C-alpha cells in the first residue's frame, strides 16, 4: 500500500515539470530547452531528488525486469559471487520467446482467469459491504464511534497476523470455524483443502481485510454530501431508495471510482493473503499471477528469473491497460481524475 501512495504522490509532484518541459521541446528550437531550464531551474532542482530516487528504486528494477524477460536467465546462468569465486553471467537474449510461451500455454491464461474472478469478486463484495456499513454508521445510532473503531480494527492489524489467525480458524480438524459448525451438527468443511472452498476462503479473508478501507473512504464521501439535499428530497416525497439512488450514489461517485480503482489494483496483486493462506494451493487452485511469478523466482529450482519477469511485465501491462480503459470510461461519463 505504501508503495502505491508514494508512487502516486510522486507522479503528481513530477507532473508539472515534465509536462512543461515537453511542451517547450515540441515548440521546436534547441535554444528553448536551455531557456526552459534557466527559467524553471528552481522547479527542476526541487523535483530532481524525487526523480533520482524513483529512478533508482523503481526505474532500475523495472528496466532490469523487462530486460530479463527477454533472456533465458535462471539461477544457473546469472552472475554470482561466492566467496573468492566469481561466475560471470552466461544467459542469452531470446527475444520475445518467453512472452510467446506464456501467452500460448495454458498456465498463464488459467491463472489469469482465476485472478480476474478473484479480483472482481473481492472488489464487488468489499465495495458492497463497505457501502452498506458506511450507510449504517452514517446514521445517528448509539455507540457509533465504538462500531466504527471495531470495524476499522482489521485494518490496523498487520496483514500477515490476520492471515495467520484465519489460517488457524480455517484448520479442518482443530479450527474454530469447524468446531462451531460441529456444534450446529454440520460436518467439517475442508476450508483450505478443497479447491472450491479454498477459493471461497481466500476471498472471504481478503474481503475481511479490505472492508475497513472501503468503509472509511465511503463514510468520508457520505459525510461530504450536504444534508439539505436529503431534506429537500424528503420534502418532495422521495422514498429511501430514491434518495439513495439519486443523491447518495451520485454524491459518492468521485470517491467510489477512486477506491474501486485502487482496490482493484491492490487485489489483483494481493500477494500476502494467497501466499500465506494457501501458498496457491491446493494444487494451483488459488494461485494468482503475482504468487505464481514469485513461485517461478523463489520456490522452484532452478529458479526461473526470465519467466518470472515475463509474468511481472505482463501483470504491469494488464494493470496499465485496465487503468487506461477505466479512465476512458469515466471520462465518457463526465468524470475526471
Amino acid at each position, binding site marked *: 500500500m505504501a508503495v502505491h501512495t508514494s508512487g502516486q504522490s510522486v507522479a503528481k509532484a513530477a507532473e508539472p515539470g515534465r509536462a512543461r518541459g515537453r511542451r517547450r521541446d515540441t515548440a521546436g528550437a534547441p535554444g528553448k530547452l536551455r531557456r526552459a531550464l534557466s527559467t524553471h531551474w528552481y522547479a527542476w532542482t526541487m523535483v530532481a531528488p524525487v526523480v533520482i530516487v524513483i529512478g533508482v528504486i523503481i526505474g532500475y528494477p523495472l528496466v532490469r525486469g523487462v530486460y530479463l524477460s527477454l533472456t533465458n536467465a535462471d*539461477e*544457473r546462468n*546469472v552472475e*554470482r*559471487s*561466492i*566467496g*573468492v*569465486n566469481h*561466475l560471470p553471467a552466461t544467459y542469452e537474449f531470446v527475444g520475445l520467446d518467453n512472452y510467446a510461451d506464456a501467452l500460448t500455454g495454458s498456465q498463464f491464461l488459467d491463472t489469469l482467469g482465476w485472478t480476474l474472478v478473484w479480483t472482481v469478486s473481492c472488489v464487488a463484495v468489499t465495495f458492497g459491504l463497505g457501502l452498506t456499513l458506511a450507510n449504517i454508521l452514517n446514521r445517528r445510532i448509539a455507540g457509533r464511534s465504538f462500531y466504527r473503531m471495531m470495524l476499522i480494527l482489521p485494518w490496523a492489524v498487520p496483514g500477515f497476523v490476520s492471515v495467520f489467525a484465519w*489460517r488457524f480458524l480455517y*484448520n*479442518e*480438524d*482443530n479450527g474454530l470455524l469447524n468446531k462451531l459448525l460441529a456444534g450446529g451438527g454440520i460436518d467439517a468443511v475442508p476450508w*483450505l*483443502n*478443497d*479447491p472450491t472452498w*479454498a477459493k471461497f476462503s481466500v476471498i472471504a479473508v481478503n474481503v475481511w481485510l479490505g472492508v475497513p478501507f472501503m468503509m472509511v473512504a465511503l463514510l468520508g464521501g457520505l459525510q461530504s454530501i450536504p444534508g439539505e439535499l436529503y431534506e429537500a428530497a424528503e420534502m418532495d416525497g422521495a422514498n429511501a431508495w430514491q434518495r439513495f439512488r439519486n443523491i447518495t450514489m451520485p454524491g459518492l461517485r468521485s470517491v467510489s471510482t477512486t477506491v474501486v480503482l485502487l482496490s482493484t489494483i491492490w487485489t489483483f496483486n494481493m500477494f500476502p493473503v494467497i501466499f500465506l493462506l*494457501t*501458498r496457491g*494451493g*491446493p*494444487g*494451483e*487452485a488459488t494461485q494468482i499471477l503475482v504468487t505464481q511469478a514469485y513461485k517461478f523466482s*523463489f*520456490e*522452484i*529450482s*532452478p*529458479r526461473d528469473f526470465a519467466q518470472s519477469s515475463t509474468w511481472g511485465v505482463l501483470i504491469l501491462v494488464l494493470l496499465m491497460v485496465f487503468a487506461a480503459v477505466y479512465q476512458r470510461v469515466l471520462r465518457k461519463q463526465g468524470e475526471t481524475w
Partner: protein
Amino acid sequence: MRRGIAATALVASLALTATACGGDDAESGKSASGKLSGTVTWWDTSTVGSEDKVFKKLAEGFTKLHPDVKINYVNVPFGEAQNKFKNAAQSGSGAPDVIRSEVAWTPEFADLGYLAPLDDTSALKEDKDFLPQAAASTKYNDKTYAVPQVIDSMGIFYNKKIFQEAGVQPPSSIAELKTVSKKIKDKTGKTGLYLRGDDAYWFLSFLYGEGGNLVDAEKKQITVDNPAGVKAMKVVKDLVDSGAAKTDATDGWNNMQTAFKEGKVAMMINGPWAVTDTYGGKEFKDKANLGIVPVPAGSDGQGAPQGGHNLAVYAGSKNLEASYAFVEYMTSVESQTTVAKELSLLPTRTSVYDKPTVSGNEMVAFFKPVVDKAVERPWIPEGGSLFAPLVTEYTKVLTGQTTPEKGAEATGDAYRKLLKDWK
C-alpha cells in the same frame, strides 16, 4: 549421575580430538600458534522444540575444543532453509559458514557453486567409515561437497493402544492397510492413516511400492509417468477416497503430528526425525505406546526413500578452516553417538553402530535395517527440483482436480522441461 559420566567422557574424547587437530594445523603451517579462531555460523534445520536443543548444546561444545572459535547457532525451519540459503549464497552476503543440507539439496548447491569441496580437508577424516549409501549424496563431479550427518528412511508409526482397542495387527501391505483402517474406524471411530497431501516426499513409498521411481538416472529416463507411477497415484487416491486415510493440502506436517500425538489417527508414515517430537504428545507419554513397522508393501514390494542430512561448508565462508573442523566435530563418532542416543537419529558412521548405547536404542535398531534396504534417490543436481512439480500434481489428484493419469503425465512433462536431454 549418568549424564555426568557421559559429559566427562565427551569432554575427554573431545580433548583427544583437539590434540589431533592441533597437530594437523601445525603441519599445514597456518597460524603460528596453530589455533583456530573466529566465528562459525551454523544453520541447523532440525525440529524446533525437540531436536534443536540437543544440536545447539552439541554445537556449542565445539568451543571446549577450540576456545577461540565462537559458534553462532541458528535454527532455520527446514521448509525455508533451501530458499534462504540460495538467496544468501547467490547474493554473496548473509550465508552461514556451515549448513545442514538435506541430501537432495547437496548436489544442487554444489552444482550452483555454493559449496566448498571437502576432499583433503580436516572435515573429512576417516571417510571410509561412512555408510556408502549416506556418502553417495555428498559426491558431485568426483568431488565431495558435504559430510553425512544423519541418515533416515520412513516407516509406519502406530498407536499401540488404538490397535489393541480395535483388535488389529500392523498392516504390511496396502490391502491390509485398508482392512485395518476400516476395523479401526468401526471399533473406535478414528481414522486409520494420516497421509500427507502437501509434500511429495510422503508419496515416494507408494511409488516405490508399485515398482515406480521419479527418474532412472542411469538410463537418463523419466519414469514418474510410466504405468507404475500412474498406479501409485491411484493407490493414494483410493486410500483417501475410501476413508482409510485422511489428508490435508495445507499445513500437513503440523496437522499430522497433532492428529497422531492426540490419538485422533492410528497411523502415520514418518521417519526418525519425528520420534522425539512424537514422544512429546500426550498419547506417547508412555513411550512404549509408539510402534513402528516398515511401510506397507505395494504390488511390487516394500520401498521407502533414503533421506538424511549432510553438513556442507559454504564456499564463501570467511573461516574455512574453522568450518571444516566444526563439520568434522559434528560428524565425529562421539557427536553421532550423542545424537543417536538422545534423539534416536541414525548415525552415518558404521563404527557408531557398534556402540552399545546406539545399538541398544530401539528406534535405531528398527530403522537401521530399513535404511539398509531404502531406495537410493538419484543424486543429480535436479534431485531437489523434482518435488515441486510432483507435489502440485499429487495434491491436485488427492483433491480431485485432476485424474491420476493426467497428474502423472503433467509431472512427467515438467520433468522433461527440467532435464532437457532425458527421455
